[in-house]
Structure formats: structure tokens, C-alpha cells
């Protein structure tokens, strides 16, 4: 292996990256993704537009409306008279999310311990949001019942401890997963582009005809993305902890090592793509299709791996995303670090995964016209 050749090739790559301004994409894209998605994906509901029709207008009903009003989850408008169909029409026109109807003589019936009925209508067009809103509404009404001492005495109370994400923040749930997504997608695209560009422009024949070895060529092509994207490990870490205020409880060393190995895996994916694709646009589209969907599905961001069953559980174990994300969530939120046998196992799997992909790519790549 001739290091001078590798160095010369690499300096050519760096110059081209700078001149084609591709370097901007290397650093803008990951930051943009983490900021947009980090702020963009919100499962929790705040400021739900709530319309309360208070047909009773008594002390208790006003108190109930007031409770909705004081909660950050609702933006309330209270009216005393409006027909149900008119109110429902407002939901149809997407002007209201929740409709609460307090029946007439609500207070009287309540004091006489007769059954009364509160009607709640929720816009279900976005299902998860609807379920969350339903739970908030229930919460407000049960709380009110508790303070009026009409809540049924419950036999069994729940004494729950929320581990890892005490406040149930969306940022804590999503941002570490995004790091796993970005470090899978971005290096793969870059490494695929560096090789496919030569194919498309025809300069790959220099590689075919010059005495440079295949291993030297691959190293020279993969090292620049590895070096450039290694910086992103730290940039993304800073965005997560500083901008999104995600706690970091585990070992930084583990995070760093795992992320480096993960970038190697991503480079391996890029190498494999570059063998199939012959134009840059195809390389980009192919990489995105291969990486983004599993990057989301098996990230544990939206759905914990433990809740999966059947095929999806098997698929989750085939892709590398699950292993890396387990470690990332551990370092950010759980904090078991390298002592945990599961983390050690997953780190080893990642390492072998990376070696496998890169050697497979190297083996499949041909130094001749196909």
C-alpha cells in the first residue's frame, strides 16, 4: 500500500469538495435536519383550540371552563349558547379542535348525585393528537371531580416513576434518534457521490488504467467523508445538549466510539450503492430510499423496539439502526455506559457490521470496465 498515492488522491478529493461547494452540504444538511425535525415533530399537544358550550352557566360549570382556560394545553373560547350542529361545523372547517358541551342543569344534577353527561367532540383527523387530547380532557374533568370530592374512591392508586425522560419531553425522545438517522444518511450519500461522480464524468477510467490499487482507491475515497463527518458527531452532540437541552447521562467515550463505527457502516452503505448506481442522481435517490425509511422505522423514536413483533422485529434486528440507537439513547438518557453487557454486545455487532459492509463493497468493486 502506497501512502503517498492515498495522500495525493485524498488531497484531490478535498480540493474538489471545496470547489464544488459540496462541503456546505456536509455541514448544513445534518444541522438543518436536526433543527427542523427536532422542532418539527411534536407529539404533545399544546394550545388545542377548544370551544366550550356552557348550557348551564352555573358556578360549577364556569369553574370547569376556567380549568380548561388555565391549562396550557387548551386555548378556550366559552359560549353560552350555540347549536351543536353549528359547533360541529366549526370542527369540519378545522377552526376548532375540541368541543366540550356542558348540559343544562349540570350543577343541580351533580349536587343531587344524578347522572349527567358531558359531551366531548374531538377532531380525529390526526389520530395520535386526538388520543392525546382525549386524555387531557379526561384529566381536567377528573381533577375537577377530585376537588369537588365527588370522585369515586379508587381502591388502587398508581404510584408511577417515569424513568429516563421524567418530564416526557418530545425533544428527549426524538433528538437522539435523529442523530442516528443523520449519521446513517449523510455519510452514505457523500461517499456514494464521490465514487459515482467519477463514473458519471468518466474519470473513473483513470482509476482503471493507473497502477493505483483497489484498496488504496477505496481508502482514499472513504477517508475524506469519514474525517468530515466525524466533526458532525460533535456538532450534533452540541445541538442536542445545548439547543434542545437533552440531558447527557452516560459515557461520552461510548457515544463517540459508537458514532465513529456507525459512520463506517454508513460509508459501507455508500460504497455498495456506488457499485450499483451509475449516475449521481440515482445514487442519491437510492441511498435515501435504503437509509431513511429503516432509519425512522427502527429508530425507537416513534415506537419502542420492544413493542414490535413478528417480521418488523426481525427486520429491526437486520438493520444496524437499532443497535446504534440503543447505545445513543443509553448514553443520553439512561447512562449505563460500557458496563452494560448489552451495550458491549451491540457495540461489537456494529463493529462487525461495519467491517462486513466495507469488505463486501471492496470485494464487489471491480477495477475494470464492466
Amino acid at each position, binding site marked *: 500500500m502506497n501512502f503517498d498515492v492515498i495522500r495525493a488522491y485524498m488531497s484531490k478529493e478535498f480540493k474538489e469538495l471545496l470547489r464544488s461547494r459540496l462541503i456546505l452540504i456536509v455541514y448544513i444538511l445534518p444541522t*438543518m*435536519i436536526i433543527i427542523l425535525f427536532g*422542532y*418539527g415533530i*411534536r*407529539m*404533545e*399537544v399544546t394550545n388545542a383550540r377548544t370551544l366550550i358550550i356552557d348550557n348551564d352557566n352555573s358556578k360549577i360549570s364556569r369553574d370547569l371552563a376556567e380549568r380548561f382556560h388555565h391549562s396550557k394545553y387548551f*386555548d378556550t373560547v366559552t359560549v353560552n349558547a350555540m347549536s351543536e350542529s353549528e359547533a360541529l361545523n366549526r370542527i*369540519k*372547517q*378545522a377552526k376548532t379542535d375540541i368541543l366540550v358541551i356542558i348540559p343544562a342543569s349540570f350543577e343541580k344534577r351533580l349536587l343531587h*348525585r344524578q*347522572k349527567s*353527561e*358531558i*359531551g*366531548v*367532540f*374531538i*377532531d*380525529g*383527523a390526526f*389520530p*395520535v393528537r386526538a*388520543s*392525546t387530547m382525549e*386524555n387531557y*380532557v*379526561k384529566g381536567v374533568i377528573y381533577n375537577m*371531580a377530585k376537588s369537588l370530592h*365527588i370522585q*369515586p*374512591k379508587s*381502591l*388502587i*392508586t*398508581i*404510584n408511577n*416513576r417515569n*424513568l*429516563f*425522560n*421524567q418530564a*416526557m419531553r418530545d425533544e*428527549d425522545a426524538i433528538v437522539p434518534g435523529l442523530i442516528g438517522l443523520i449519521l446513517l444518511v449523510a455519510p452514505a450519500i457523500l461517499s456514494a457521490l464521490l465514487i459515482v*461522480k467519477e463514473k458519471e464524468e468518466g474519470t473513473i477510467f483513470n482509476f482503471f488504467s493507473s497502477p493505483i490499487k483497489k484498496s488504496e482507491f477505496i481508502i482514499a475515497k472513504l477517508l475524506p467523508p469519514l474525517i468530515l463527518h466525524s466533526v458532525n458527531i460533535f456538532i450534533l452532540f452540541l445541538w442536542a445538549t445545548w439547543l434542545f437541552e437533552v440531558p447527557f447521562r452516560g459515557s461520552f467515550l461510548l457515544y463517540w466510539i459508537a458514532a465513529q463505527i456507525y459512520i463506517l457502516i454508513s460509508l459501507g452503505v455508500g460504497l455498495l450503492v456506488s457499485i450499483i448506481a451509475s*449516475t*449521481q*442522481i440515482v445514487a442519491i435517490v437510492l441511498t435515501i*430510499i435504503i437509509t431513511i*425509511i429503516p432509519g425512522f422505522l427502527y429508530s*425507537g*423514536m*416513534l415506537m*419502542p423496539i420492544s*413493542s414490535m*413483533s413478528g417480521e418488523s422485529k426481525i427486520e429491526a434486528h437486520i438493520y444496524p439502526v437499532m443497535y446504534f440507537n*440503543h447505545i445513543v439513547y443509553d448514553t443520553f*438518557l439512561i447512562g449505563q455506559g460500557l458496563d452494560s453487557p448489552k451495550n458491549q454486545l451491540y457495540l461489537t455487532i456494529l463493529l462487525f457490521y461495519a467491517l462486513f459492509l466495507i469488505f463486501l463493497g471492496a470485494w464487489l468493486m471491480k477495477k475494470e470496465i464492466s
Partner: protein
Amino acid sequence: MRVFLALVTKELIGFLRSWGLVAVVLYSFTLDIYITGKGIEMQAKNIAIGYVDETGGGMSKKILSRLHAPEFQKPVPFMSTKELSKSIYDREIMVGLIFESDFEKNLEKRDRASVDILLDSIAATQSFQALQYLQNILFDYSKTDFPVELKIHKLFNQNANTSEFMAMAEMLSVITLLGVVLTAVVFVREKENGTWDIMLLMPIDPRLIILAKSFSQVLVIMGGVTIATGIVLFGVFDITINGSIAAFFLLSFFYAFTSAGIGLFVAAVSKNMLQVAQLSILIMMPLIFLSGAWTPIHAMHPLLQDLSLLSPLRYYIEGSESIFFRGTGFFDLWNYFAGVIILGSVLYFYGFRKIGRLF
């Protein structure tokens, strides 16, 4: 008109010949939407649950027997709290129930007892729902009747089925993305081959060429929309549409022109395919972000709320949701149509001017 048709036909044939592009479009409008709809489940289902039971059985067994599919997996017994919490730390179990040894005794003697719950709350929404499920189950073991009955109706999607919603949202994103990329590609391919300048110098009105070229891609998109709604949305996911399908297609048609307008702009500023890909990503992401696809617009920062008025996707998504789920009448949809058409005209006109300039 004859020239126009000839140009449209030329572009359509050109599209069908590049099998790679056809494959990508077909994939995006079918399999991609299917995978997203099937794969992304945001409601908590099939939760892995474990328990430690230090009581002799009885009440705790009764409660455990109520944890079943589809919400929960079969509860896994653990010998001690330590083992249970280790499993939670390794993220094999999401919810842990601990019945302490005096649980049964407290229940008999004092009529109240408490269950300790350890909850892995990383996936915040799902954890919150899991907690709600448990609360509802335990709520049933209460003494008196609760005098207020809550009649909760989730309108339009009573079962809160996510896959329908995700499939539709994915289709809208695919339309946006492909609308921009395909249009940009037809022009940039000519640029790369050096035939674009020749096209502009031909004795045909260049405006006609641009219109025909972008119209051909709008047709491709509409074909894709027909396949996606017909096969995936109605066929596989069996979505019921509450509004009028014609209104949806009309809105999609206008929207396809809007994204073609963005595509024209992208084509005007980029020299090759690579730049098209980069620019499209850079432009699309904020557009999608501001559209309210993920965050409801009224929950955004006020400044972003104002900015979101500029995202044509916002009107398209809200309009399509209203047509599919809310079943809004045609005339109540006017603001969505107005939003898409006005923004679309501006974008299209701007892109039109920019790409039509020779130098």
C-alpha cells in the same frame, strides 16, 4: 395547440423511456406510501410489560389478566424489582408493575392500596398512553359510580387509526417532492445536454415550450396520484373518503402546478442534476416543516405561524385532510383553493420568467 401537444407527448415518451425515473416514481407512489402507512405506528400497541408479584395472588392476578392484546404483550414475571429494572434499563421491557407484599392486605383492611409502576418514558407519547391504559384499567376497580358520564366522540376517525393518516400524509409529501424534482429534471437534462439554449432559440414561443414541459410532468404526477389513491389508499388501506374525490383531484392538480413552479425555479438556478437534488432538499424541508404536517400550526411560534402562510403545502395538507377525513363541503374549501392557487401562480410565474431567460 398542435405544437403544445407534440411537446407534451415528447416529454411523456422521454419520461417513459428513462426506466430508472419511472421505477422511482412508481415506487414512491405505491410501496413507499404502503411502508409508511403500515410501518409507522404511533399509538401505543403491543407494549412489553413485566411484573413483580410479591403477594400471594388474587387481586394482582385479576389485574394482570386484564393486560392483553392489542395494547399489551403477555406480562413477563420477574423475581425481583432489581431484575425488572435491569430489563427496563436494557429496554426490553417498557412498563414494570410491582405488587408489594402488603398490597393484598392493604386492599382488604384499608380499602386502598397502591401499585408501583416503573415506566420507560423515552418514547414519550407511547409511554403516556401506556400509563393511561393502566389508569383506565385500575379505574374500573372503584367503589362508587362516577356521577359524570363523559361521552367522547373522536370525529372522522373513531378508532384513531394511524395507518390511514400516515399513508395519506406520505402521499402528500411524495407529490410535493416529485413535483419539484421531476419538473426540475426535465429542464436540467436539456441543460446538461446543451439542448436547452437550442430549444429557446427555436421558432416556437419559448413560453409554450416551458408550459408544455411542465404540464407533461404535472400529468405524470396526476397519474401517480391516481395510482396512489386508487390502489394504495382505497385498495390496501380501505380509506373512506368523507368529502368529494373530485375536489381532491382538482386541488391536487393546482398543487402539482405549484410544485412545478418551484421546480422551474430550481431548474433555473442549477446547472446539473446534483445541484437539483441538493437545492430541492434545501427548499423542500422548510416548506414541509412550515406546512403543519407534523406540528399543528397554532402550536408554533407566532413568527413561524405567519411564515407558514407562505407554504403552499400548508393549504394542500389542510385541504386534503378536510376532504378525506372531515368531509368538508366543496364551498367551505375555498380558502384552501385560494391559498394553493395564489401561491402557485406567484411561484409558477416567477419560475417561468427565470427559466425562460436565455442569458
